[in-house]
């Protein structure tokens, strides 16, 4: 299957330079097929977050081209960006939650921008929040939650609209063993339902005993694939 099918994510000679002396990504070539579950790993500062940011268009590459679902991102107009982002669920390393809003409101945001009807929205949001184990804290403000709980809100928001692509940036960074296993299991389940997943982490135990593809980034270059 791989090789014959058009990759869902494709990077060609992608470089990202933040400043003259900060080269975060250096001519990265990468293909990810539809339905794949890929671990992206490497030491801190290797460029994992940068790579993901380029995919959801928070940053633009300095050079090289990126294709998602056959769409060349460099040719994307500003008005097309929202359409792309709706296909990508992102779990941000810094969560990016609204601290003064409830868990429910934060997760609901993903569906509100899609114009979901209230009833359906409520049902789905509650279901997903229960899925990450926060069913008893639906109307708590995010600021009153622990770091691990906030991380799970971020996960819930990323997956509630069932995007075909999920980019997870250290989604287990604040979680204990048990919660970490739960999150990985959740990703497995979403992957089994067809979602393509890019999972950035420097926690080797997550992929050591799996057969999953692991991409090792170091100093902005792919060291191992």
């Amino acid at each position, binding site marked *: 299957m791989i090789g014959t099918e058009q990759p869902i994510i494709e990077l060609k000679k992608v470089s990202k330079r933040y400043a003259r002396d900060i080269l975060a990504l250096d001519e990265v070539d990468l293909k990810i097929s539809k339905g794949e579950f890929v671990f992206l790993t490497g030491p801190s500062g290797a460029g994992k977050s940068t790579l993901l940011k380029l995919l*959801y268009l*928070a940053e633009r590459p300095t050079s090289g081209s990126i294709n998602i679902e056959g769409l060349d991102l460099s040719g994307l107009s*500003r*008005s097309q*960006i*929202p*359409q*792309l*982002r*709706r296909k990508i669920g*992102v779990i*941000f390393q810094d969560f*990016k*939650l*609204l601290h003064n809003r409830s868990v429910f409101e934060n997760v609901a*945001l*993903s569906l*509100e*921008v*899609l*114009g*979901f009807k*209230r009833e359906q929205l409520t049902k789905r949001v509650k279901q997903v929040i229960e899925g990450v184990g926060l069913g008893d804290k639906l109307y708590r403000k995010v600021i009153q939650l622990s770091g691990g709980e906030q991380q799970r809100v971020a996960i819930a*928001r990323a997956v509630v609209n069932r995007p075909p692509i999920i980019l997870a940036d250290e989604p287990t960074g604040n979680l204990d063993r048990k919660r970490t296993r739960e999150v990985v299991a959740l990703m497995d389940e979403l992957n089994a339902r067809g979602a393509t997943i890019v999972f950035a982490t420097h926690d080797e135990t997550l992929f050591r005993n799996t057969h999953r593809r692991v991409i090792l980034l170091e100093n902005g270059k792919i060291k191992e694939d």
Partner: protein
Amino acid sequence: MPFGIILKRAFRDIRQNLVTHLMTTLVVVLTCLIFVFFNLFSINLQRIADHFGKELAIIVYLKKDVSQEKVPVLYQKIVSIKGIKEVKFVSSEDAFKRLERYFSNEREILAGVDPTFLPPAFEIQIDKALYNPNRVKEIAKEISKWNEVDKVQYGKEWVDRLENFSKMVRTALIFCAALLLVTAAFVVSNTIKLTVYARQDEIEIMRLVGATNGFIMGPYLVASLLQGLLGSGAAVVLAFLAYSYLIKAFGNSSFWESLHLQFLPAENIISIVVVSGLFCTLGTAMALRRFLKL
């Protein structure tokens, strides 16, 4: 576009920044109030000018001893003068009746006055199309030479001045309108910018989860539209209350009544409200476009 959610967000925004939004609306009210008063002044000035322009043309007072039979002859003579549109004879009695009507509330003033003390007169309307001040002067001079004529008055000059003044006021009104509208739009868009500034994080997150610009801007546009509509609406209502109060307090004197004052016509009110709403929304849209780098 999920309009229900946009409305909900707009009202939540307004609730959470109620004081700021109220202050802004107040500024819109004041701005529109200035404009409404100007407009009211201008419209009524024009009405007064029109009114007197019709009533006062040339008045030919006859000597008191002129006999009734002479009247039709004089009438014919006047009508035959070029540039005259209408001639009306006002007898002493008619003139006195008018006076009585004029002083309806203070009739005692006229008690014991001889009803024929006023001289009979011709009221001459000049054809507007042919009107020019020199011609009026000529006609007046000519008529004043007649034997039967006591005195000729032509009050057009001050009506002209009034009309010129009213034109000036109207020009000033247009300038003032433009200035005030820009001010209102500026203040409203600035308030919205402050609100947006306080919500930058939220806007960034909304964008990251795929919100369109319309979805992000919608609530702010709704809020400024409301401010524009409510502000101008309140201004019109306040102006009307003030106007009604003044009319009630002074308006029952005959002098005031003779001015035939009126409040703004409906089409003016509608345009003020619509334009105010439009400008506030547009101002905000432009400010947001730049601010959000859309």
